[in-house]
């Protein structure tokens, strides 16, 4: 059976970590090419948070009490960290829908029959989503500056805040991956990927001051992983409305955000890869 041994030699397994990274990048490239060829998806992904910025700033600004003032300018600066964080989490739905579509079209079967690293299809997808998220954040930051948002800290701190935001977004795409692998159609993945994000992003410090919530709701909001990232960003941007609550994540938001993100990645990546390996259409 010389033909057999030849084929095996072509694909002799190298260093598994190296292979995993390489395969992930190949899949990421594929997803980035797709994004470039379906620009509508990227454009709507950018338009949506811009709408939030404009609507929240002009509709709610002036009626929100942040740190004892209802000044619209203060609310705008307060709001931006929340919108940034909400934007990165919405990438979840895209990841879920993309993976569900691959399942639906039989592409996952093809990938699973190839001698490639097991997690690479999912890692590649989440990495491509990370690139899209970064692009969205960049455009959004420019819009935010136009409506009057300013940072009052060093460039290093501002960059650190954006780093935390990207990490949070990356962690959430793994939740999207699990959703995408669990539903039967891409449509279900889109709505299923979005619906739970509303309570998560609204029962938080993103749009209102948590001090004004009823105590039980406030506790949930303060321990919400999402709130930790928002609080960390406000602190790192030097924006108003930083919570003075003595809840641990509000006292140490950068650490809390980091820990939450790493935990989410560990748990949901494990779940997603396990689901991928046993996926059946």
């Amino acid at each position, binding site marked *: *059976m010389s033909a057999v041994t030849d*084929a095996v030699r*072509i694909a002799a397994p190298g260093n598994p970590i190296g*292979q995993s990274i390489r395969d992930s990048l190949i899949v990421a490239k594929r997803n980035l090419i797709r994004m470039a060829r379906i620009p509508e998806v990227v454009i709507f992904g950018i338009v949506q948070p811009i709408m939030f910025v404009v609507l929240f700033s002009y509709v709610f600004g002036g009626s929100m009490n942040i740190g004892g003032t209802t000044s619209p300018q203060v609310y705008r600066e307060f709001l931006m960290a929340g919108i940034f964080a909400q934007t990165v989490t919405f990438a979840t739905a895209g990841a879920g829908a993309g993976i569900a579509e691959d399942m639906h079209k039989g592409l996952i079967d*093809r990938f699973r*029959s190839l*001698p490639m690293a097991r997690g690479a299809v999912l890692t590649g997808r989440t990495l491509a989503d990370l690139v899209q998220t970064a692009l969205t954040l960049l455009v959004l930051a420019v819009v935010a500056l136009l409506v009057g948002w300013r940072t009052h800290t060093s460039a290093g701190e501002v960059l650190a805040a954006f780093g935390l935001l990207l990490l949070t977004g990356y962690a959430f795409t793994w939740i999207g991956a699990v959703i995408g692998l669990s539903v039967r159609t891409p449509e279900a993945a889109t709505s299923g990927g979005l619906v739970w994000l509303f309570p998560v992003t609204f029962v938080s410090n993103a749009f209102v001051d948590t001090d004004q919530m009823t105590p039980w709701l406030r506790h949930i909001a303060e321990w919400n992983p999402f709130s930790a990232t928002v609080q960390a960003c406000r602190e790192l941007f030097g924006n108003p409305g930083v919570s003075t609550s003595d809840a641990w994540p509000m006292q140490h938001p950068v650490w809390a955000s980091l820990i939450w993100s790493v935990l989410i990645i560990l748990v949901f990546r494990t779940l997603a890869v396990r689901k991928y390996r046993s996926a059946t259409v």
Partner: protein
Amino acid sequence: MPGAIYAEGLVKTFGDVKALDGVDLDVPEGTVLGLLGPNGAGKTTSVRCLTTLLRPDRGKAVVAGIDVFKQPDAVRRSIGLSGQFAAVDEYLTGRENLQMVGQLYQMRAKAAKARADELLEQFHLADAADRTAKTYSGGMRRRLDLAAALVVSPPVMFMDEPTTGLDPRNRQQLWDVIKQLVSGGTTLLLTTQYLEEADHLAHDIAVVDHGRVIAQGTSDQLKARTGGERVEVVVHEREHIQAASALLDRFSLRGPDQGGTKVEEHMRKITTPVSGGAKLLAEIIRELDVRGIEIDDIGLRRPTLDDVFLSLTGHAAEAEGEDGEQPGAGQSGTGQGRPHRKEAAT
């Protein structure tokens, strides 16, 4: 030594449904096995088990000499799979699709690119190489999918209903490609609902029904099981039916009461089981001529795989049916019963 594809007692249950109920297969190296059966017979589930996509509840499988359930990764390096749907990325060009698959087979980028160009040429896709697969017709997508399965020239190939949904011209083209491939020594397991396809491409045919292999053999062996060849005569005048029927009785292998000569009055058709081939047919024609019996049609009819399926399972292959036209008194009755679906181009 077991063949290049070997399965023993594969069992897989989904909830209450026993998709596989003890499938045994053995495909010698360099041959083609056609897995023939209606929808839901267990063809796709068998392929998924053998290609590492699905773990059976019980059973053993060896592909290219490697245990499928113990070393799935090693098996993946030695197989190519073309699934039931053309699994290509619509938003990637033909070239990008093949290049990606090559790289995921762990080829270097340059080698993958060269191989992609080669395959595009071979599969008549070179002109469309830089268009996205979304613009391809159904036949082109199928060819691209098949090319993707062949990137590393794997010694063992699996094709799950490769021509489902293709028009006759594209089907013929794909058959030519498959024949070429097999002549190069690849071992192939092919599933199909189309009896004609199995007859055409496979050395051996395994008939599956309700998760089991209910018969296996060459096309000829299977046909022999349903009673060998028959002579079919259509007379011109209704009053000649009697005389022709008496004549055919003389050549018949069996008496009229043992499933021998059969008469279909309204079609003026008389059929009887015989052995003796073309020589016998010539003799019958002479005898008919001597008796002045004018005929519209005469032929030696070998049982089709449709007949085989019907006699083995007691029901027709479910994909057939709406197209039940009989092939006159043709030589060997191929070309029947296949629904010619329109090619889906979007």
